[in-house]
């Protein structure tokens, strides 16, 4: 079992004709992902890596029965590409693009509440169900299938922690990189609740970082709603204070959350052990299983 993607997921790649789109489509297919179409306006009728390209996502859905998208579209056009996925009633859209204006994402976020599509990202590595499918840019060879779920805000930190897990035989059900932007589709809480419902996931690793309050909210969710044990990691304990959130940002909540300390405390209070190193996270997962 897995969450969000499996071997039956039929993927359309938006922006398949670009450099990154083409490279990672090939990588995804090599991994076994069922990429059924590409979508690039004006490029309908072409083929990339043996995959037919359509001008619109809705054509790809109609002709190839696509039910998920991966978006490699430049930032200026990325929000529009996400809207197109949402409007085409896909089950899942994964936005890899980094640097989408926050106000565009605010509008996307509003639209998300009105549709059934799960959005993962943006500014994320995507997600993978080992030995079944990967949607995104994750290096497939470091993952192995098993019973540990993983959710992380940082792409490369995801790889690091997975490497530590895999090296000692702790395979994964699904690993989801949710992205580090201020406004994202799938939150920690969304991913944790999907893992909680997945019978094959026996433990979850949650990797957070400084900034925002998502980890604190996740801690609350874990304490109240989860039976599946969770191990945590928080990056940025030594981060310089200058990297804190901007001026007015802190006014909204009126509290000094967002530091590594407040996140670690919140997770500890929810019964989540937080490792000092990625290796220690793997130790903790072994203890929880």
């Amino acid at each position, binding site marked *: 079992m897995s969450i969000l993607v499996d071997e039956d997921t039929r993927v359309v790649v938006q922006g398949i004709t670009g450099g990154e789109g083409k490279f990672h489509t090939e990588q995804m297919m090599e991994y076994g992902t069922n990429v059924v179409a590409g979508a690039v306006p004006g490029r309908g009728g072409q083929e990339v890596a043996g995959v037919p390209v359509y001008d619109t996502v809705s054509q790809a859905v109609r002709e190839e029965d696509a039910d998920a998208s991966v978006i490699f579209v430049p930032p200026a056009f990325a929000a529009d590409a996400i809207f197109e996925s949402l409007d085409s009633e896909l089950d899942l859209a994964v936005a*890899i693009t980094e640097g989408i204006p926050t106000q565009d994402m605010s*509008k996307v976020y509003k639209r998300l509440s009105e549709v059934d599509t799960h959005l993962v990202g943006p500014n994320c590595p995507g997600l993978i169900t080992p030995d079944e499918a990967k949607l995104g840019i994750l290096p497939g060879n470091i993952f192995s299938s098993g019973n540990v779920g993983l959710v992380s805000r*940082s792409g490369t930190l995801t790889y690091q922690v997975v490497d530590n897990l895999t090296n000692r035989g702790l395979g994964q059900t699904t690993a989801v990189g949710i992205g580090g932007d201020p406004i994202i589709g799938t939150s920690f809480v969304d991913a944790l609740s999907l893992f909680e419902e997945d019978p094959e996931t026996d433990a979850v690793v949650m990797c957070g970082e400084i900034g*925002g309050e998502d980890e604190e909210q996740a801690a609350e969710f874990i304490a109240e709603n989860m039976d599946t044990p969770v191990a945590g990691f928080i990056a940025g304990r030594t981060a310089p204070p200058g990297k804190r959130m901007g001026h007015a940002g802190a006014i909204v*909540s*009126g509290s000094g959350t967002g530091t590594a300390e407040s996140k670690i405390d919140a997770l500890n209070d929810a019964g989540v052990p937080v490792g000092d190193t990625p290796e220690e996270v793997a130790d903790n997962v072994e203890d929880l299983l």
Partner: protein
Amino acid sequence: MKLHEYQAKSVFADAGIPTPDSQLAESTEEVLSAAESVGYPVAVKAQVQVGGRGKAGGIELVENDEEAREAADSILGMDLKGYTVERVLVEEAVDFVDELYVGVTMDRGEGKPVAMVSRKGGVNIEEVAEEDPDAIAREHVDPAFGLQPYQARRVVYDAGIDREVAGDVSSVLTTLFSLWDDRDASDTEINPLMVTSDGEVIAADAVMNIDEDALFRQAELAEMEEESYTDDLERKAGEYGFDYVRLEGDVGIIGNGAGLVMTTLDLVDYYGGEPANFLDVGGGAKADRIANALDMVFSDENVESVVFNIFGGITRGDEVAKGINNALEQFDEIPKPVVVRLAGTNAEEGMEILNADLVQVEQTLEEAVQRAVENAQEVHQ
């Protein structure tokens, strides 16, 4: 991207928000002539992008030429929290009876913009938010529809603004929201919005931060960007386009992805070393970018040891290895020991390309960091 006060004020004024008469000055003579044309009393305000300028001696109220000269002499050239003051704004001193706060920002938790109004303007609004959160009225805005007139009224009346000026404050807030929306601001703020004895409102300060990711469609504002680095290395990082922060330690750190680089810093600290910097080369870095990153860290005289931690996803190990080779092959002797840890996409190809005579290779993050910390410690023994 943060605008200077004078820049934000001109944007606000062009949009119809009342602002005091003012002129920019770069010398004592210019301050005097500006004060002459604005008319005493005037405020002389340092134009540097830091908060708390008043408390730090960067703002002075002056009544005449003599005081203006003294203020100009003391403020121009002063060091204000690490920034040298090169310009001041000479501004009409507003005779006020009340100071309000008006602001718009993104509530990232809600994914929506939020408009805020408070009667407690003129002070550190973050302290107000901390100590008396109810003193700030908030109104979340649907990003698809924008701030509606009734919402502007509601937040203004909820904040307890006097009925006599409520209409004007609503109008300022509405304009501020339009600016926030049209100009891709991450936040816009007026603190204080002064109320004069005639019952008029006037923006005595102006804050506008623009979303860097949206500058591609904000050409006019992008042109206002002024480099303001306190440090030569940060200036260099700006030229190379790196996310870079200089720190106090001696272990130089280069990696890809903010989360992993932060983790590498945390581990250097955990294993008893001190990070010299945060340097994220970003996703998909090619060889020349990697070489620039090494150049950057080598040019920090505090650095005694370097650790390269790359876990490739969109970044490819072969490109990283080429960049490291390019940067190191130009030296007869490597200036500081470099530990390299490569994993992920094309890591095997990278390991084959990497010139192992020039670097120390480690397989795991933990080993690489420990080795780099030891390298730095050996220098001090």
